[in-house]
């Protein structure tokens, strides 16, 4: 099955490990993903604070207009990009008046979007299109004994403000992927709780507080590592982990992997193709047994 792929800005910079490992896994699973030509930033929810919802969703819609002629489902890895593209798509389908406003805005650039596409999050595609059987079959090095906390994050499962491909509060789908890889998904009540988002520069205490709770929950559940499909969750749990230890007196040593990085390990792909050099909490301490230094 072919997809129009939307990487988004974070996947190309602070979340580069996600893009690198996605590409490796894409090849291994023979996923036919084509990057949307000339895509633009989705605006993230943070833009709406400044310009409001309509202009922010209009710029997100340009990407759907660009992808429409190919006719494939739009595949998105990043949670925030997924939210923006999936929500503008859903809202246009639900509210004709809103759709007319978006199309009027797109019309200023001689573009339009006829709402013929589906926007899909990576986890959804892995479970429902590729299928757990294929993931299991492709697993060369089962991750037996590895305990994983699956951190979906907030926007991944609440993009449509209703049940989407997973539960809005207690997501299960990533657990299934992880178990298909031979690892064990631990019960993790914080799976869909906020990490503090982009408050790093404006109220960093919130990161310490919210991400601190996520790390605490994972540690209490006995997890060896956390996996996530979200660049923002990854940023806060990985990049800020040392800082949280320093500020709150904790001693977490919890590697955080993008879900595609963990898949790559189980698929026995070369570690150098999985972007581990971008991880700040060294994954080797927990993954040495599976060939990751």
């Amino acid at each position, binding site marked *: 099955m072919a997809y129009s792929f939307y990487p988004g800005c974070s996947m190309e910079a602070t979340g580069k490990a996600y893009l690198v490992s996605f590409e490796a896994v894409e090849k291994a699973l023979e996923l036919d993903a084509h990057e949307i030509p000339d895509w*633009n930033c989705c*605006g993230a929810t943070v833009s*709406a604070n400044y310009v409001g919802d309509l202009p922010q969703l209009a710029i997100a819609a340009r990407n759907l207009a660009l992808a429409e002629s190919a006719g494939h489902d739009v595949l998105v890895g990043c949670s925030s990009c997924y939210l923006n593209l999936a929500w503008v798509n859903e809202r246009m389908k639900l509210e004709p008046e809103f759709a007319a406003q978006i199309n009027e805005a797109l019309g200023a650039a001689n573009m339009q979007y006829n709402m013929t596409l589906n926007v899909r999050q990576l986890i959804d595609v892995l479970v429902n299109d590729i299928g757990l059987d294929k993931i299991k079959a492709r697993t060369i090095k089962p991750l037996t004994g590895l305990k994983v906390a699956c951190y979906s994050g907030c926007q991944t499962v609440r993009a449509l403000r209703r049940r989407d491909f997973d539960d809005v509060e207690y997501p299960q789908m990533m657990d299934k992927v992880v178990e298909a890889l031979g690892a064990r998904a631990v019960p993790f009540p914080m799976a869909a709780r906020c990490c503090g988002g982009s408050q790093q520069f404006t109220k960093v205490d919130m990161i310490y507080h919210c991400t601190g709770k996520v790390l605490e929950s994972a540690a209490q559940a006995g997890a060896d590592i956390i996996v996530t499909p979200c660049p923002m969750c990854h940023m806060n749990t990985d990049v800020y982990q040392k800082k949280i230890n320093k500020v709150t007196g904790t001693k977490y040593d919890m590697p955080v992997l993008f879900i595609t990085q963990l898949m790559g390990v189980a698929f026995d792909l070369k570690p150098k193709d999985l972007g581990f050099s971008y991880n700040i909490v060294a994954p080797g301490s927990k993954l040495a047994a599976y060939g990751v230094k």
Partner: protein
Amino acid sequence: MSADKEQATPKYEPAFHREFRAIENGAYASQCMQCGLCAVTCPARELMDYTPRRLFKMIHAGEKEKVMNANTPWLCTSCYLCTVRCPRGIPIVDVMHGLKHELAKKSCKSGVALLSKVFFQSAMKRGRVYEAAMTNSFYMKLGPGSIPDAMKQQDVGLDMIKHKRLPLFPPKKIKGLKDLKKIYEKAAAIQKEAHKDGV
């Protein structure tokens, strides 16, 4: 909140509730039935001046000054937990976006208002956000007073540089940048026309 603030006679502006209804997504605030589920749900509640429930009550009561100065919307991270839980189906995050947009029109000198502005400007400069330059721009615009705060995060920044998470070069400009600007400007004009009677 200080005791003084609590005891001072509130200033009521009865027209405020109507004005608030005119801002983008503002009308939803009228649907609140004060159940308080958002208040116990919000991950930022402990840091907020007023929980969303109280904010909605103050909107109904016309306490304009308190609403417009509350840190409540600025601490909302758009996690959507309140929005999926609200029994009245109020898209609380959207109401917060509407309120922040209204406040940002008046001033974007610091905090999330400034961050949102530099983020959007970065997105519109090349069509894609350059996270490293956006951060610099945020601190530059905050001025020298922000240096101590920025210094406190130096270790985090250095880790990111060491692990190549902050690319040295910006993303390439998209080809359709002019189109993107036209789309934004048209959408902003439609929005302005639809909500011209706002706060």
